[in-house]
């Protein structure tokens, strides 16, 4: 019974399903579909009701239940998504040190306590310059010093700009940690405190789960989320919209609620990158902490929990 089958399946949500339907109906190829993999018509049709009250037939393949995309192969994960180049914009004028980004990231990647891939640092360069809270993540540099020094290709730069880590290859020499000037990398000094079920999963480069003892970890721009056309966890988790993520090849970044034209945003708000003089060419841009509507001190209370 179609009804029964439909109800037992889990459908793709939102855009992906709509898009694949739309793609099935028009011949427009959407960028995600390329990423999701070619959805080939199976030949079997399903009858559905249209908004006009007509019964239409849609190929079953487009309704295929894929609760989550299956993890891509190691080779695919090392290559990345061609044609994209991910970029992050962090608006320092909005950060209040709520650390919701950190919570979401740690939860999504099952990190040990004390291992934060997102750190929110109190910054004040000189006596009279502005104090502000600066969230730092891996910068996914275009000329990454960490990748240059890795002896076994355990960390590598993908075509879509993401610098990823293969925890099955890493020998734990920690040269990448010494080489990174942004202190973006953390090390799994002990056995990760994760459930045995999660620990038994095969390691996926795109989810960076499960972390392994004796290997390095860092922000991965949530490669699995971006492959499905969703925003990384830190971006969605921030209530102030500090993080805006997007594709520089589409010239657009979004923090979940607002979307900006990337080139205009950086030009208008004088965006910059950290430690530009080192020549690492990071993919994370910062917007200066001007025009804050709350004082820097409002973030101090929240800071005390981790930094006594």
């Amino acid at each position, binding site marked *: 019974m179609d009804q029964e089958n439909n109800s037992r399946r889990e459908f793709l949500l939102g855009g992906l399903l709509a898009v694949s339907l739309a793609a099935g109906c028009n011949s427009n190829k959407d960028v995600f579909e390329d990423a999701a993999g070619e959805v080939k018509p199976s030949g079997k049709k399903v009858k559905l009701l249209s908004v006009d009250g007509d019964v239409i037939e849609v190929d079953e393949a487009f309704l295929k239940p894929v609760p989550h995309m299956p993890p891509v192969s190691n080779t695919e994960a090392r290559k990345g998504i061609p044609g994209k180049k991910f970029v992050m914009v962090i608006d320092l004028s909005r950060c209040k040190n709520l650390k919701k980004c950190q919570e979401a990231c740690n939860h999504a990647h099952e990190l040990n306590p004390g291992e934060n891939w997102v750190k929110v640092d109190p910054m004040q360069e000189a006596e009279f310059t502005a104090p502000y809270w600066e969230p730092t993540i891996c910068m996914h540099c275009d000329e990454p010093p960490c990748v240059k020094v890795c002896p076994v290709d355990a960390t590598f730069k993908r075509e879509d700009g993401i610098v990823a880590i293969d925890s099955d290859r890493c020998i734990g020499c920690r040269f990448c940690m010494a080489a990174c000037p942004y202190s973006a990398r953390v090390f799994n000094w002990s056995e990760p405190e994760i459930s045995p079920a999660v620990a038994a999963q095969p390691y996926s480069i795109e989810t960076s789960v499960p972390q392994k003892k004796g290997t390095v970890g860092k922000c991965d721009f949530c490669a699995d989320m971006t492959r499905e056309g969703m925003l990384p966890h830190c971006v969605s988790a921030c209530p102030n919209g500090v993080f805006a993520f997007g*594709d520089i090849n589409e010239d657009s970044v979004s923090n979940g609620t607002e979307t900006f034209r990337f080139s205009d945003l950086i030009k208008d708000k004088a965006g910059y990158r950290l430690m530009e003089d080192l020549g690492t060419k990071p993919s994370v841009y910062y917007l200066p902490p001007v025009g804050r509507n709350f004082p820097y001190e409002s973030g101090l209370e929240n800071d005390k929990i981790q930094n006594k």
Partner: protein
Amino acid sequence: MKLLNKIFTGTLLLTLLASAATAFSQTPEKGDLSIAINYYITNNRVPYLVVKVKTKVDGRFKNVAGIPLKLYLDKDSVGTSIAKVITNERGEASAMIPPSVRKEWNSQSKHTFLANFDGDKKYSSAKGDLTVSRAKILIVAADKKVTATVLALKDTTWIPVKGVDVILAVRRLASDLNINETPTFTTDSTGKVSGDFKRDSIPGDAKGNITLLAKIVDNDQYGNLVIEKSVPWGAKFIPVSTFNNRTLFATRDKSPIWLLVIVYSIVIGVWGILIMLVLNLLRIKKLGGSSAQ
């Protein structure tokens, strides 16, 4: 009498004990679920529902996975059942309107969707509902101007609707970029909104095609509607990949030629000498074997 009294007190005690026991062994308070139904139509084709189930834990909402829900159209009877779904790990489930409820669907322009959860060991039963009126959205794009029209079904005709918030945007990765500075447009009496496309040279595909869209988000009456249109208003974009270049930060098979030359020549040179010296040792060994001593 004494015996009867004894039996009476005995039974009373037993019932008290039993109820006390059940009171203690009673399961902890069942959680409460909040069920939200969202209604979507894309490109005026097949409408579908996305049901989100959350529960409040420590004052924060958490998604709940594995909740079985029964979805109905207007009435919760077998004839108007839409689907039976189970929420995924994100606490969401989706379902499309099946042809079996066609009669009910066509009978009126306003519908209520019902989601029922019968309750299980952890959570008490819960219900959710959403009332929508059937609506359509159309888009026209010409001369760098985008116009969208919103029509709602009244009886059997589609009439334009006034005062609906519409977003006109360009589809991007995981988000939509507004076509100009105005975040939202509101339909006028003819149900139309219009905006100038200000995003010049926004990168499109290799031919410069971009996807325009007009969407209504979380409208109380009409739900979520979106319609797309592909136009060649974007800048031609052909990605240039440096992935296969030979650099110091490439993979092992793409190391710079100059580095390979230097390292290999040093290694071959020095190890060549070492191998020669080992062969030399073998010669010495041979000389030692042949000399008469």
